[in-house]
């Protein structure tokens, strides 16, 4: 019982963290140019 009380908030927090990360990524334009991101990895001279 005590374990459950500890684990459920942890599970929820982890899930919320994932959701927050996704929403942040969405807002900061990470999904704006999916094809371009795949291409940019091939650029050589970027440090």
């Amino acid at each position, binding site marked *: 019982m005590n374990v459950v009380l500890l684990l459920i908030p942890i599970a929820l927090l982890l899930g*919320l963290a994932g959701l927050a990360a996704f929403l942040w990524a*969405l807002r900061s*334009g990470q999904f704006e*140019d*999916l094809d*371009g991101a795949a291409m*940019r990895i091939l*650029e050589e001279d970027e440090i």
Partner: protein
Amino acid sequence: MNAEAQITATQAIAQTRLSVPSMRCAGCITKIEKGLSAVPGVIDARVNFTSKRVAVSHGVEVQIPLLVTSLRDLGFEAQPIDDGTVIDEHEESRALLRAMAVAGFAAMNIMLLSVSVWSGATGVIRDMFHWFSALIALPTVLYSGRPFFRSAWSVVRHGRTNMDVPITIGVVLVSGLSLYETITGGAHAYFDGAVMLLFFLLTGRWLDSVMRDRARDGVTALLRQSAPGALVVKPDGQTEWVGARDLAPGMRMLVAAGERLAADGLVEEGRSSFDLSLLTGESQPETVLPGSVVHAGTLNVSAPVTVRVTAAGADTAIADIARIMEEAAQTRSHYVRIADRAARYYAPAVHTLALSAFIGWMIMGAGWHQALMISAAVLIITCPCALGLAVPAAQIVAVGSLMRAGILVKDGSALERLAEADHVLLDKTGTLTLGRPEPVDIGMLDQRQKSVMMALARSSRHPLSQALRRSLEAEGIVAADISELVETPGEGLFAKYDGEVVSLGRADDTDAVTLASRLRIGNEPAIDIHFHDALRPQAAETIAALRKLGLEAAIISGDRAAAVAEVASELGIGARAGLSPKDKLDAITQFSAEGRKVLMVGDGLNDGPALAAGHVSMAPASASDAGQNAADAVWMGDGLMPVAIAIRAARATLRVVKENFVLAIGYNVIAVPLALAGMVTPLIAALAMSGSSIIVVGNALRLRSAAR
């Protein structure tokens, strides 16, 4: 986005977006970004490869043509995008994606808790898990359910109903009842069902929205933009770039060869020829002299001219056609999408079913609580989860497949209308034909003549010269060494080769119907090269394929009767010639009045009203802006076959959508009696819902190769 962060107060910054349709490789990204950043005044350039655009932030002193020429020097054709059209066009998709992410997160967590309840949690633990579920579910329903609540409210207010009404009632009723169950310590809470329903439905909505965005991006990337502005000579002799919107009568525009006019006007200085094909469908360029009237959207072909603006913006001849187009498009907005047509029958059926379940159980002596629970279960089970996914899933798979085949379909409704078309009307110039002259008898020249012709032709922007250059380049001809090259507008090109005068110019004495150029080398007899606006590859096969699909084709053209008759007899189809944009529109209205569903295929501005009025319309990528904007689908490449492919794919999609409906209804036939009998637990509801959705999506995936 990053560029905005760099903005400091020291300097005025302007943002310009350019469409660069020709970027295709990883190297292009680096090349464009580095190349543009090296232009003085440019602060930052960021490529968006998906939408084939580059966003440039630069000092206000940098003029847009400089950016375009810089890109041309880098090897990319670019067009500035009108800022008014691009502001946050993906906002709707993003909002739906946010709602979907929240619903997905909530559905997973509630499911986790629900699984424990289903596997036998009782007493305090079950109540606690229900409370946790309620804490997650209620805010989620409030947030993620908004798109449905809003849409349902907007139709209910007008006394109508759509798919969103049973969804809204179902979700709200189920959430409320589950909350009641939780408070009173009951056994069943349907929070997982309510949230999962929202998640699946939002997935369908989001797919639909993404599909529209992607096609719209594709089309904007293609738009060749009737000049978004012009170089204006100020009274003090200085020149300044003025956007099309700010042009005013009386201004003097400098129009370089190869530029499109941004406004109507009178030629003041210079002689040139103008390509009017966009306005009239006529492929022969017209010679203009000082005093000639020229219209916005036409292309200056051979030499720079100065034009005094007489009408700009909404007063131009183009804007008139645009107005007819707008009126013509009104008729099309009456089309009701297939999902909404299904909802017309489905929604009342669901409401009646749930209501009769409630009344039935009340009569049979069950308490109001049990009766409500059962009608809620009926709503959850019948909620058009699979129906909501059935249409968008099939359509986005088909649209993706068509896109890979080079056909951009603008939205799902276009795909539905395409499947219904039973008659095809085609424009001639630029649609059935390539819309550019191709030399026919170039083969009779010898190597020396070809290389002289190449040297002359490549230095002119005249469409005939360009056509010669393309054909000769394709043969691998190397240009001869010529000197003292002069281009005289309306007459031709003159130069010295081996001490002799060589020229490439107009062949005056040929009849008006055929286009021809005359090559002279010294005193040798002159050679006439004839041109022909060739039919698109596979034109005849496409007509045959369309006939096999049950679509009868006919030509409606603005060109001369003789030229149209030639094409019509070659393809063996009927034709009407010499039609004005209004006549074309009337022809379509007449067909519609007979109950025919017309597919209009056209390219020019003169086809615009007809494209907008057709039940559905297609345009080639070489079409005018207006044509591409009005069309439901745009195809790339020279061939005509995409027209038939699109219809075949659209019909396959309709078939799959209907199968999906049958699947969804079949599932209801099994599940609804269970729900009516009060045998549906939250576990069964969850299984049934996800099961039917997965089957429907799986069936839609069969369309992946629809465009082959």
